[in-house]
């Protein structure tokens, strides 16, 4: 009984079929089953070749129109107040509720585009979900205050240094007469 170990030439089925036709092989168990229900693609060996030129792969990026709202939500509010519980199959996160509310209000059409975001926040607040604004506003305020404070402190320090320098100058001017006075005293 023969076999064909050239796995790079054809598929398992084509090699077995050809050996059967010649008469070197007895029909294997799986042959009829494969012939009756073949796979979608014949399992031939293929060399993985690199892409050349401007050829791109056919895998699309998945983006949805709701992603704009989601991006803004995460930029403003950070990750929501509640952590994600992925053990439940139909879990709805705070962000998802926000997006759905946003779409509802948008479909109603009574509110303008710019105010939709704030209105959704207010609507969610009304239904009991408290959203805390993230860092962006807080951070800028804080930094502004800090800068002011730092400026003030720096100003104070500079003033004191100036005063010291002025004082030293006066001391230097006054020193020789003082020294002479001291020498006089000592002596």
């Amino acid at each position, binding site marked *: *009984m023969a*076999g*064909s*170990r*050239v*796995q790079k030439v054809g*598929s*398992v*089925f084509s*090699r*077995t*079929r050809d050996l*059967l*036709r010649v*008469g070197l092989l*007895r*029909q*294997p*168990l*799986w042959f*009829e*089953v*494969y*012939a*009756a*229900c073949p*796979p*979608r693609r014949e*399992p*031939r*060996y*293929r060399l*993985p070749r690199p892409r050349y030129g401007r050829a791109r*792969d*056919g*895998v*699309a*990026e*998945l983006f949805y129109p709701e992603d704009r709202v989601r991006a803004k939500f995460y930029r403003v509010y950070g990750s929501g107040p509640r952590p994600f519980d992925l053990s439940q*199959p139909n879990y709805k996160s705070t962000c998802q509720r926000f997006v759905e509310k946003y779409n509802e209000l948008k479909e109603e059409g009574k509110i303008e585009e710019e105010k939709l975001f704030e209105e959704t926040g207010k609507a969610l607040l009304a239904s009991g979900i408290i959203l805390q604004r993230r860092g962006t506003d807080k951070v800028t305020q804080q930094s502004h205050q800090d800068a002011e404070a730092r400026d003030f402190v720096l100003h104070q320090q500079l003033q004191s240094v100036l005063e010291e320098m002025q004082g030293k100058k006066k001391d230097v001017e006054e020193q020789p007469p003082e020294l002479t006075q001291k020498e006089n005293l000592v002596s």
Partner: protein
Amino acid sequence: NCPFPAYLSRESILGEQQSPSKNNSCVAEQHGRERWLGAFVLLPGADDRLLTEPLSQPDFFNVKELFSLKDLFNARVHLGHKKGCRHRFMEPYIFGCRLDQDIIDLDQTMDHLQLALNFTAHIAYRKGIILFVSRNRQFCHLIESTARECGEYAHTRYWQGGLLTNAPIQFGSGVRLPDLLIFLSSLNNVFEPHVAIRDAAKMNIPTVGVVDTNCNPCLITYPIPGNDDSPTAMELYCKLFKMTIIHAKDYRKQREVFHELQSKAEGEEMPGKGPHVPVSP
């Protein structure tokens, strides 16, 4: 009513000389449809009917009922690796890329899974040897217990070089090789294709395999694009394979009993003729 082309008929392949072969110690001896009992040949009717009956319909064992798209989604079969790990030949099976993570197309997975389970069922029906292979240490125990429960075999440890290609020397002559290899993870511990895929292709053994987005599906006969890293997904695959194999084997037992009863009834009707008809000179 034969589903295969004419040139594959038994007469054309083997010719008129059908000599019995005794003591055939060849390595790749597979379970043949002809059983040689000296000068006697079994009535072709019974055996043929037993083996060709399931091939009459495309989904004879009704494997579609075992799973649904919702089950696959809940088991996280659609989650692939990151974009950088993607294998070029997996691109047709990928639905898209969400923030750099590949999402496998579950419609294609359903189709491929149905074909693979159908093939497994037929092999189990014909009393073929099935070998589960995986080098993922996380699911080694699960796969071994699955294989034990359905009465088949598993190899989830280090694969020695000549297990399939050098079998007579490793195991002794006259060993019967597996008729189907099921890969529940087609990569080994260093993220290269498992050696058994290439070896099975060399030994003309069909393979069924779960291919993730970083695997090469070329040489696998019936690939199943899906996640091979999540525990839920692996449990689902093990459950599906176990159910198909057990159902197919039970059905086979049923049909054998039925055919036995039928032949006994025929034997009683015609007391002169036995079930074995001598070959006419």
